[in-house]
Each structure stands twice: as structure tokens, then as C-alpha cells.
């Protein structure tokens, strides 16, 4: 078996409700800002809470090399393309790789399936089509744009990021709820470590600001509860083979030193995952890490849901290393261990 290769983080793209890019987001964290405000993307007034953390004033157009593709991209995908474009620019990656050496692995979840468009088409065909499937098949489909489904397939997110970034390497979509973004980072690091790709654009994207997501959150009893606000955003990292990154003089922001994922049921499972992540699955020997009670760190971070956990860890640049962890409501979990730039071996950064 080939030895596993080291994995550098050479680019970061953040498109979040707290701002765009690492400095803006870190500053907003530092000020203790909240992005929660009444939702504007749809009328949420009927739900237990109408608060949402939205990415305001978001213009996806400059991030698209071919803006015609915008009509095929839902909000999740637009956020992901923007974050990936920022990450590629941050890493100065353009032109340093052959297309087939660059992969895309993103975590995401379901969309609203174009509910407004779908309901307009059902209305247009007469209300009966809503409960009569043969009628739906005959009438509604002819009133729906032929692009409808293409916009809402979950894997289209990774496809459009790949198209816009010119990435023809491994392309994967992870859909493990709130663990998906981090798991995608882990899978991306693994793909680089084992040599399937020289670099991977890895991260998560989602927009939970639509009626289906709010309905699900309300059914679960979270909406209007303490501290839970639906949000949206995308985080994409450039994960790059270590030696290649050094040779081209890339700024190394960190190293993925380990990761793990699994289904957890209780603290013992969680510790097992954190230990596995700390034990350097991606190939290096994270000595500082193993002894540092990474399970405890993971436990703390498990309290924070969503795709921003890793950003949190990276933003704290004076932290020598961190564990980012996410746990979904059904137990899927992912843990990623990152050594941040100040603690990297000399000459690496």
C-alpha cells in the first residue's frame, strides 16, 4: 500500500450570514455578532419563529465564469460556487493543476424542490392535479420548465462547482445531515491523501430558508426554541497535497491531520470518533493532538451545529490545533482535526 500523503489547507472560501471571507467572518465572531433576523427569502410569518440567518446582498454572478449556468443553480449551489471561487482565488490555484487532478466533494442537503414553481404548475393545471397523479403526469409536467428537476438534484451542487472551477477529478456529494460539510472535508482530505486527486474543493453548502426546512424544524420542535435559528451559507476549502503546495509556494493555512465519521449514540461513541480523528487517519502523526483531550474539544464543538464549525476553528488563528465536529439529529457525525498555521512545522507556511 502506498504511504498516505499529507494534506494542506491552502485556500478558504466563506459565504456566510456573518460575512464573506475569513477576515470578515472572524471579525464578526470577535464582535459576537448575530445574523438572526426575520426571513426575507420567503414569508415565514406562519411558523413558530420567522427568524433566519440569511446571506444578505448576495450576488452570485461575479463567481460564475459562464453566467448562463445560473438558471440551473438553486441558492445552495450559488452559495457553493461563490465559496469555491473565493477558495480557489485565496489559494491562487488557477492554472496550477490539470483539470482531472482537481476534485470536488461537497456536503449538502435537500432543496425545496422548487416548491413555488411546482405549485404554480399545479394551480395552472387545475387544483385537482394536486391529488390525482395521472392528471399530474399529463397536465402538470407540460407546464413545468424542463430544467426544473435539474436545478434541484442534490448532486448538481458539486457538478456546477466542478464546471465553474474546471475540475474533472473525483466528484462526490455527501448528504449526512449536519455532519455532511465536515464529512466532505474528511472525504476530500482522504482523496488527496490516497492520491486520487492532487487537490479537492471540499466543504459544505446549504440554504435551509424555505418552507420545507422550516416545516421540518418546527415538527422537530426546534423552531422558536432556545438558540435555534435556520441559516444558510457555504464553506469551501482547498485541500492540497502537501509537497505540491510547498513546491508552488502556496500559503499553507493549516493541515488536515485526521478525520473520522460514523454514527454515534452517546459520549463513548463520540470519543471513539474523536480519537480516530486525532490518531491521524489522513497520514501524519498529530502528537500534540492525541494527548490533548480531543474528545472534550469535540464535545464542546458538537454543541455548535452547521457548516461553520470548521470556519470557527480556522478563524481562531492563535489556536495551535482544533477539532471540528458536527453531529446531525440522526446520529451521523464527522470529526476533522486540523493543525492551524502557527503550529505547522517550520518552513511550511
Amino acid at each position, binding site marked *: 500500500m502506498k504511504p498516505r500523503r499529507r494534506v494542506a489547507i491552502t485556500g478558504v472560501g466563506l459565504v456566510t450570514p456573518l460575512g464573506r471571507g475569513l477576515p470578515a467572518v472572524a471579525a464578526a465572531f470577535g464582535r459576537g455578532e448575530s445574523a438572526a433576523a426575520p426571513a426575507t427569502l420567503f414569508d415565514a410569518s406562519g411558523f413558530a419563529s420567522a427568524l433566519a440567518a440569511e446571506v444578505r446582498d448576495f450576488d452570485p454572478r461575479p463567481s460564475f465564469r459562464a453566467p*448562463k449556468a445560473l438558471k440551473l443553480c438553486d441558492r445552495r449551489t450559488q452559495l457553493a460556487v461563490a465559496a469555491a471561487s473565493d477558495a480557489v482565488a485565496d489559494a491562487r490555484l488557477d492554472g496550477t493543476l490539470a483539470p482531472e487532478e482537481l476534485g470536488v466533494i461537497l456536503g449538502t442537503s435537500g432543496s425545496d424542490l422548487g416548491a413555488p414553481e411546482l405549485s404554480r404548475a399545479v394551480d395552472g393545471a387545475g387544483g385537482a392535479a394536486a391529488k390525482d397523479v395521472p392528471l399530474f403526469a399529463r397536465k402538470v409536467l407540460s407546464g413545468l*420548465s*424542463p*430544467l426544473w428537476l435539474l436545478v434541484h438534484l442534490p448532486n448538481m451542487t458539486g457538478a456546477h462547482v466542478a464546471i465553474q472551477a474546471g475540475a474533472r477529478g473525483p466528484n462526490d456529494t455527501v448528504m449526512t445531515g449536519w455532519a455532511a460539510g465536515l464529512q466532505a472535508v474528511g472525504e476530500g482530505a482522504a482523496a488527496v491523501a490516497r492520491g486520487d486527486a492532487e487537490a479537492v474543493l471540499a466543504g459544505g453548502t446549504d440554504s435551509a430558508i424555505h418552507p420545507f426546512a422550516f416545516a421540518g424544524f418546527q415538527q422537530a420542535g426546534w423552531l422558536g426554541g432556545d438558540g435555534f435559528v435556520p441559516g444558510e451559507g457555504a464553506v469551501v476549502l482547498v485541500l492540497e497535497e502537501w509537497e505540491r503546495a510547498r513546491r508552488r509556494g502556496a500559503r499553507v493555512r493549516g493541515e488536515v491531520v485526521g478525520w473520522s465519521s460514523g454514527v454515534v449514540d452517546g459520549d463513548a461513541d463520540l470519543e471513539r470518533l474523536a480519537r480516530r480523528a486525532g490518531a491521524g487517519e489522513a497520514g501524519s502523526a498529530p502528537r500534540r493532538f492525541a494527548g490533548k483531550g480531543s474528545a472534550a474539544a469535540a464535545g464542546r464543538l458538537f454543541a455548535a451545529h452547521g457548516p461553520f464549525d470548521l470556519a470557527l476553528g480556522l478563524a481562531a488563528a492563535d489556536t495551535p490545533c482544533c477539532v471540528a465536529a458536527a453531529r446531525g439529529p440522526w446520529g451521523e457525525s464527522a470529526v476533522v482535526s486540523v493543525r492551524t498555521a502557527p503550529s505547522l512545522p517550520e518552513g511550511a507556511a
Partner: protein
Amino acid sequence: MNRQEIESRARGVVAAALDHPLDRVTLDASLIDDLGAESIDFLDIAFRLETEFGIEIPEDEVWKGAFDGVPDDADAIAARLAQLARERPGFAWDRLGPRPSRRELPRLITVRTVVDYLERRLAPESAPA
């Protein structure tokens, strides 16, 4: 609906579908060569035109039947294409390569092709059944 109105609305549809400013969508622009359309965009444009003009556009409408009975041989195809070029103005016939093949046909579709088609379809005497 007069030709001018059809043209103006059709150009608007093509501009929106292909994400171009209106002034790039000239009558002689090839949807593929000049405006970057891909196969999926033809489906999209057909659907948008159906909605805009309240008509149904059958699949393969533009070249339907054009090659019925023509053997799959370069000379026969070239001869048929030459005949089509005389019979059907409004396509970018000058863009055919030196050894034309059927595969090049979509490239010949221009904005004028679309407007001509709509004008025929919307003429009172040829109203769809």
C-alpha cells in the same frame, strides 16, 4: 401578432434563456456558435417560447422530416442540404463546413429561424388544431 412584435418578444426570450444583453441577440446570431447555447438550452428556449406565445412546440420541430428517405451517405446528405438551403431561408447556411454533416444542423439555427418559425405558427391560417 405582427412580425415586429414576435421578433421583439422572441429576442427577449432568447436573451433571458442564454443570459445575454438584448443587443447581442441579433437576427443572424447562431444560437450555438454566437450565443453559446447547449442542447439543454434548446429545451429551455422551446418551453419559454411555449409559455410566452401560448403555443405547443413539438420535439424536433425545426428539422423534422428534413432527411426522411435520405441515405446515410456524405454525397446524399450534402445534396439534400443544398436543396434545404434553397428551400429554407432563415438559417445560417453559410456556416456549414466543407463536408457538411447532419450533426452541424443545430448550429445553423439563428434567431431569425426562431422568429420565422413563430411567425408561421402564429399565422391565423395555420393555427394548430
